[in-house]
């Protein structure tokens, strides 16, 4: 069975799921099982298709729908294949997770909209990866946006969710329009909506740059790159957790896919200017550091995860930017390295971010809150979830031997192995971005120590957290799969890279040095043995070895005594004496206060004398810098404009006639 037919199978399975969602709305139980099962099938098919796309030659198919003179073109190539692979992996896990998750959610409300729009969302994403003409691409792209909007506003009773949904759809629409503009330019040059014609099209430098900027901003908006990320931290938390996992895990990667498809593939890097890569690099670095900095200041679990998605997109963008720069100064194998690093990080991020969002969902169900101020000590009530979540935290903090480290390591290699480039600007930019990458990594570690420490460790901060229930089996399976993959991808990157290497081969006709793949399976040597190498397996072995030796000691003197912790002589510790989330990030808030501009207030009441304190309450609020300085001004301006326009519509009838009259005079005036 060819890759293309697998892909179509995936699409049709999702479509069936959509129909099932509509038809079975009467019997929620069957609805849930059938939809999840079909989604699982779709995921498996997508997985197969992805592998086929990476391994075998591209396949095409045309469906007789769409524009009259343009049948819908589908094409499965290495690039699309890779992202289908990512989708398949995470979607499968999420489908399993949803079986359990939605059972609990379904007890509270009618889930039919979810069952209708979730498959649509999946169809949209798969379709984008398969599209081979601009029209098809845009159709599925927008379908993805709309469907996910309805998923974000699923719990629309809550004010915040509606606001988030609106902002999301608005920005999605704007982004779509920009992308459309980009395609329009290519259409004007190539004379056809088919991607082949667009590839062939030769653009003037100006038009090429315009197309690049349009695509950059359009896809950047969807991917949540820093200046355009405002929707992301609101929208992802609003959606149900399994959806957030898909949105953060895959949807923003689809944006990366679109970026690659349009800029690397259609416009083509041979038409690139030197500053394109530079721009991507700068935006990437900004998102990486900015995203994690704001993630550190969030006290709501899912918001933290959302902001950290911004960070990871930034890391991916750094890889892409490096690739573009190298490609422009034609160091093809280095360009390939940058691209591979970016792709590998996309895969990894899909895994651990999916895992973490599912974990957040489990916490939400277990302790009925995602507010860190209400959580704590969950590791004792829900140990398995905790263990899995910990794996996610370690991976996302880029620590060996898990996968996050590998992709960041590759990115570092790409940045460090840079030969000197013409133009000191770039050669200064690249190490700078490397520094930002390092900073982001370290901050991420801090952030996720905070997350895990506050949510799962310590003692419960609320009765609900004290009564937390462990997630059910389905959810645990759903989380276990990406967790396992995090480890495997961390230990056997040398098996994954040859697969990914097909993408640069197809896109820029370059691949990693033979050493990368020719080498023994336990060595990861992107460029050359003497330059840099990393053997996760040996690291793991060494860790285990050292660990084991001391486990021996552990069992030799097995016995230990338990007592209550030291409390400086204070009679008893209570949960409110723990460090809170806000407290944990206080030093950083102090260091980066110019960036955060935190608004804090101290409410105190006393018994008549300042020393006789009754109660103290400290509140601090950190608002997104760009929100205040970029988005609000735009909003205000447009509001002002609408008010001016409104004047037109509150005139007496003479006024209306006067409009007609003046228009007439003006038109006639043209003739003078």
């Amino acid at each position: 069975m060819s890759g293309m037919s697998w892909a179509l199978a995936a699409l049709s399975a999702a479509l069936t799921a959509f129909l099932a969602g509509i038809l079975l709305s009467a019997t929620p139980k069957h609805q849930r099982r059938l939809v999840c099962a079909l989604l699982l099938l779709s995921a498996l098919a997508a997985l197969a298709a992805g592998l086929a796309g990476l391994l075998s030659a591209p396949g095409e198919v045309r469906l007789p729908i769409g524009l009259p003179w343009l049948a819908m073109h589908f094409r499965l190539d290495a690039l699309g294949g890779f992202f289908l692979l990512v989708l398949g992996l995470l979607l499968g896990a999420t489908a399993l997770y949803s079986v359990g998750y939605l059972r609990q959610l379904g007890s509270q409300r009618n889930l039919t909209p979810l069952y209708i729009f979730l498959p649509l969302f999946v169809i949209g994403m798969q379709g984008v990866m398969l599209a081979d003409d601009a029209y098809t691409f845009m159709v599925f792209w927008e379908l993805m946006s709309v469907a996910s909007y309805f998923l974000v506003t699923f719990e629309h009773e809550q004010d915040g969710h509606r606001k988030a949904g609106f902002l999301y759809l608005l920005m999605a629409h704007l982004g779509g329009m920009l992308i459309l503009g980009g395609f329009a330019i290519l259409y004007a040059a190539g004379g056809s909506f088919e991607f082949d014609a667009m590839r062939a099209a030769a653009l003037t430098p100006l038009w090429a740059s315009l197309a690049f900027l349009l695509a950059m901003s359009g896809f950047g908006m969807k991917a949540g790159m820093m200046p355009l990320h405002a929707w992301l931290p609101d929208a992802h938390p609003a959606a149900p957790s399994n959806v957030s996992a898909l949105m953060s895990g895959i949807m923003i990667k689809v944006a990366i896919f679109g970026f690659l498809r349009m800029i690397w593939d259609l416009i083509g890097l041979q038409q690139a200017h030197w500053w394109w890569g530079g721009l991507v690099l700068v935006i990437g670095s900004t998102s990486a550091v900015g995203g994690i900095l704001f993630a550190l200041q969030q006290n709501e679990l899912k918001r933290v995860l959302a902001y950290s998605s911004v960070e990871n997109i930034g890391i991916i963008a750094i890889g892409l930017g490096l690739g573009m720069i190298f490609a422009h100064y034609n160091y093809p194998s280095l360009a390939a390295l940058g691209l591979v690093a970016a792709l590998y990080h996309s895969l990894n991020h899909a895994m651990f971010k999916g895992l973490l969002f599912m974990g957040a969902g489990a916490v939400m169900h277990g302790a009925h809150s995602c507010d860190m101020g209400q959580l704590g000590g969950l590791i004792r009530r829900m140990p398995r979830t905790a263990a899995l979540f910990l794996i996610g935290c370690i991976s996302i903090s880029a620590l060996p031997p898990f996968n996050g480290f590998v992709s960041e390591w590759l990115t570092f290699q790409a940045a460090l192995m840079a030969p000197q480039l013409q133009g000191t600007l770039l050669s200064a930019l690249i190490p700078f971005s490397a520094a930002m990458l390092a900073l982001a990594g370290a901050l991420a570690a801090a952030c996720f120590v905070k997350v895990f420490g506050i949510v799962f460790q310590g003692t419960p901060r609320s009765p609900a957290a004290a009564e937390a229930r462990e997630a059910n089996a389905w959810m645990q399976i759903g989380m276990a799969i990406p967790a396992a993959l995090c480890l495997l991808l961390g230990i056997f990157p040398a098996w994954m890279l040859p697969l990914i290497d097909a993408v640069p081969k197809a896109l820029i006709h370059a691949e990693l040095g033979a050493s990368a793949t020719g080498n023994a399976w336990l060595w990861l040597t992107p460029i050359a043995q003497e330059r840099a190498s990393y053997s996760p397996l040996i690291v793991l072995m060494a860790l285990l070895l050292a660990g084991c030796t001391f486990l021996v000691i552990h069992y030799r003197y097995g016995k230990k005594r338990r007592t209550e912790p030291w409390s400086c002589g204070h009679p008893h510790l209570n949960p409110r004496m723990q460090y809170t989330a806000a407290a944990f990030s206080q030093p950083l808030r102090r260091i980066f206060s110019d960036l955060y501009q935190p608004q804090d207030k101290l409410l105190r009441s006393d018994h008549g004398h300042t020393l006789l304190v009754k109660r103290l309450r400290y509140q601090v609020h950190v608002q997104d810098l760009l929100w205040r300085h970029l988005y609000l001004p735009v909003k205000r301006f447009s509001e002002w404009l609408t008010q001016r326009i409104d004047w037109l519509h509150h005139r007496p009838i003479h006024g209306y006639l006067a409009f007609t009259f003046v228009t007439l005079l003006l038109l006639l005036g043209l003739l003078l």
Partner: protein
Amino acid sequence: MNLFDLLLATPLIAGTILGVIGHRPRATILNIAASAVTLATALVLAYQVLEHGPYTAHDQAFFLDAYNVFLVSLTAFIATTTAIFSAPYMRHEQAIGRVTAERLRLYHAMYQLFIFGMYLGLTTNNLGVLWIALELATLATVLLVSLYRTPAAIAAAWKYFIVCGVGIALALFGTILIFSTSSDVLGHDNAALTWTVLYAHAEQLAPGVMTIAFMFLMVGYGTKIGLVPMHTWLPDAHGEGPTPISAVLSGLLLNVALYALVRCKTLVDGATHDGLAGKLMMGFGLLSLLVAALALHRQRDIKRLFSFSSIEHMGLMTLAFGIGTPLANFAGLLHMTVHSLVKSGIFFTAGHAAQVMGTQQMSNIRGLVRHHPGIGWGLLIGTVAIAGFPPFGVFTSKFLLLTAALHTHPWTVVLLLLGLVLAFAGLFRHVQPMAFGIPPEQVHVARVNMLPVYIHFGLALWLGLAIPGFLADWYQTAAALLQGAAP
């Protein structure tokens, strides 16, 4: 009598009959039946034209070509569904005492008269008669807009009457000017106003006069299209009239006015080879788009809101026809179709929403999906469709329009994108809270008839997914025609 006469006669006869018995409960059935008959006729005619090419009747007094026969069938279709929708709707209105039986009679009679005006305008071959038809439609709808006799309704109707009256008068002046030059080319009789003849002899018409004439026609018919800044009558008329009328105003009247303008444009282009006419239309189109997009944000009344969206979309179509390349014309025609379908569907939904909530004030309409899922989702889907999200047809036409615009006039694209995004924001910021959220306590129960809505959206969806071959050919011939091919 042949089919063609049937097409014109049916609404006229039905109108007169309804003028007598329109107050009876049965009247609605007659209303629907008449519309259905015309629909059937229109479809057959369309088939004939597709098979055997253009067709003229009564020695060139009437004619059908690819362009207008498609509008005829569209009109017939929407007239029918609207009639179906209006039956329960108006009954409810009567039940809650907003209209008396007498008014209902007037309503039905005028409805058919209006439809007759549409057909007359679409099929006539005579610019003068075209004008008369539009005036007729205007007068008929004026009475319909003032149907509720509330102060607001009277004021709206008056505004509509005066502003459109003046506009249409200017159009007449334009027509006279055309005649003044054509009459000494083609002799002093009907031929000098017959479109086909004029189209054939466009070369010989005096450019200077034609240009001035077009200025007047632009302002005149532009008023009826609802182009900014002559649009001021439109929101009130849509807002205060009964919902079926808002639906047909948006769905049909505006189209026909645009049809008239485009017909004249082809003539003027034929006479003066500077693309001035096209440029003017593009300018008005963009202006309407932007102003309407901004105005959307400030609306309080649900029907006014969507009427502004109509202005926006008429702007888009005018822009498309102004650009005038085959692709753009194709986009314009497609957009005309899907906009009529979706927008009238939305008006049906909005009407129901207003009925169940007992108000048109959007601030009091909340949480529709909770208590009336049909209406709530209908409103959402409709808005998503009209905002141009796939897989609905509006997306297709928008997509084509954008590409066409960038092909010929790149600078317009910036404004176009801006306008579209602003319009979407303006529309959605009002619709979302109406559909979602917690509903208020008191909610009326109304017999909701969502069938027409689903039909309309279904068709729009179909057009978005796949444009059937015959329709595509149809559009393409029409597009070529508008660009100046032989009729």
